[in-house]
């Protein structure tokens, strides 16, 4: 039922999109017809984003953004499954899906020198996803990324070898619905690949990212770019230079959930242009500079997978840490703050934001534009790289945020950049 509703919403949204860009004079049937000469190369290029707690009832995702992703056996139109509630993540690249969410779809694991290839991504919070890599067709709206490597996150009960210690690396697994709090992760950052040159042949060591596995054990290996997890958007035949995410404004007290749009391509269609968004190019580390209270923080970034605005620390901001919610700020009254973001191209944007008391969030609500925490902790450490702004999902509410893929040209210049 939920899926039917979602499909209807997507269909309605696409109808509105198309109607808005085709002059409104055509009949509805022409939108479905391939003979629409105005947009002969246009395919539906937007999907619904649901911001909310996600699919896990035991471990909900505070401030998660989710999409449905259709995955098919390469070349097949019948051997497909649609996976709901996949986390929309502008902070990573590549599609990762729980094995248990694939409904037995017969995907073939890729091999590396005869051994099964596995991928491990360990995030900043030391959670990790572990599992095999298989080629699949990835479908979003009318877009298809054909036969791209995706990660099949290993079911702990499966026969796939468990994560080697260089993958777990002192962290905790996010390989189930209740530890991932999603059915998968759709990584649509500005990077083309999840690891890139650091894992390609010719490197000394890729740490613990790609592995070659026998039935019982796994060894670190290098993998050519063509076999690494790829940003699915980059693999679309068109609308492949980036994305934009539009989410509505929220009331101060938040909402149980809300919906918005993930649109593919930047300036590739009549309805996905930059408008008056300011383009901020990323530096070599994928960062921009945030100026706050007269100080400059050059390791700042935007990440829809981060569920709060994580910035600075209590000594620097004067915002007290929460008693209960570890890592978050809990001012006694809501604080209204502002900062300025500047790209490597010196283009700037002011950003107004608020910080609420996370220990007293209204119970039924799961999406907020004003939850925040620290990027560092302990004694004041001015100038440290641990002092930065991570503009997480709260930043996305009330905006359209564009993410341009590295090396891809757009009307606003060549990626990587953010624009909003």
């Amino acid at each position, binding site marked *: 039922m939920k899926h039917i509703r979602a499909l209807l919403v997507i269909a309605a949204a696409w109808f509105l999109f198309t109607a808005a860009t085709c002059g409104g004079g055509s009949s509805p049937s022409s939108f479905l017809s391939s003979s629409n000469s105005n947009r002969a190369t246009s395919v539906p290029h937007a999907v619904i984003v649901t911001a909310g707690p996600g699919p896990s009832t035991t471990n909900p995702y*505070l401030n998660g953004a989710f999409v449905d992703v259709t995955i098919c056996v390469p070349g097949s139109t019948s051997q497909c499954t649609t996976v709901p509630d996949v986390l929309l993540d502008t902070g990573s690249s590549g599609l990762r899906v729980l094995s248990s969410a694939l409904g037995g779809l017969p995907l073939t694991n890729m091999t590396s020198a005869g051994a099964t290839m596995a991928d491990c991504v360990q995030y*900043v919070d030391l959670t990790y996803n572990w599992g095999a890599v298989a080629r699949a067709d990835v479908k979003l709206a009318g877009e298809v990324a054909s036969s791209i490597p995706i990660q099949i996150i290993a079911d702990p009960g499966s026969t796939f070898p468990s994560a080697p210690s260089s993958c777990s*690396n002192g962290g905790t697994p996010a390989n189930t619905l209740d530890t991932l709090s999603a059915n998968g992760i759709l990584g649509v950052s500005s990077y083309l690949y999840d690891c890139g040159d650091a894992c390609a042949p010719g490197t000394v060591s890729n740490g613990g990212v790609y592995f070659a596995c026998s039935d019982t054990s796994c060894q670190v290996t290098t993998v050519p770019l063509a076999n690494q997890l790829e940003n699915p958007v980059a693999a679309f035949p068109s609308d492949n230079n980036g994305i934009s995410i539009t989410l509505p404004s929220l009331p101060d007290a938040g909402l149980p959930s809300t919906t918005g749009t993930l649109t593919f391509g930047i300036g590739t269609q009549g309805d996905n242009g930059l408008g008056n968004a300011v383009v901020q190019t990323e530096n070599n580390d*994928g960062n921009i500079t945030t100026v706050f209270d007269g100080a400059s923080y050059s390791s700042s*970034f935007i990440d829809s997978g981060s569920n709060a605005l994580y910035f600075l620390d209590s000594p620097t901001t004067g915002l007290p840490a929460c008693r209960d919610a570890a890592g978050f700020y809990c001012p006694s009254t809501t604080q209204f703050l502002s900062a300025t973001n500047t790209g490597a191209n010196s283009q700037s944007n002011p950003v107004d934001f608020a910080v609420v008391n996370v220990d007293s969030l209204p119970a039924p609500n799961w999406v907020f534009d004003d939850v925040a925490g620290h990027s560092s902790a*302990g004694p004041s450490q001015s100038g440290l790289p641990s002092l930065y702004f991570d503009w997480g999902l709260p930043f996305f509410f009330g905006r359209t945020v564009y993410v341009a893929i590295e090396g891809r040209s757009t009307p606003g210049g060549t990626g990587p950049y953010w624009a909003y």
Partner: protein
Amino acid sequence: MWSRYASGLVCVLVAAFAAMLPARAFAELGGDLKSVQRDRARMKAAVTVRQTERYAIHEMTSGSGSPTVREFATPGGRVFAVAWQGPFHPDYKQLLGPYFDQLQRATEQAAQQRRARRAPVMIEAPGFVFQSFGHARSLAGRAYISQMLPAGVSVEEIR
């Protein structure tokens, strides 16, 4: 920034290309520097040593986008702090030595009540501090043994 700490006495560059072994071996936190000497022979890594007034920094780079690891050693040759920066996490078991178990315990405990997602990590165990920050493909962090910090050395220098 790094040159700020290089106001000291010696700067030695030792590039050892003796073996093709993966560069996973570092002196561990709390350990002595003998293992650094052994590592030099085995690692395909460049080791830069900078001596400051209060400690020595052994910086290990394996090239090609691997994490850069900096080990901070007391004049007596004990590693009291480590810092790292790179596209992925370093091997913490190797790097943290006996403190790895504390990291593991702390992350398991944090996972029980996690509300922060894709957020920086700060672990303060008795005598041991661990921080991880940044984002995918641009990660950094530090770990140190509180009581081994030489007098007059601030945490901010561990980077």
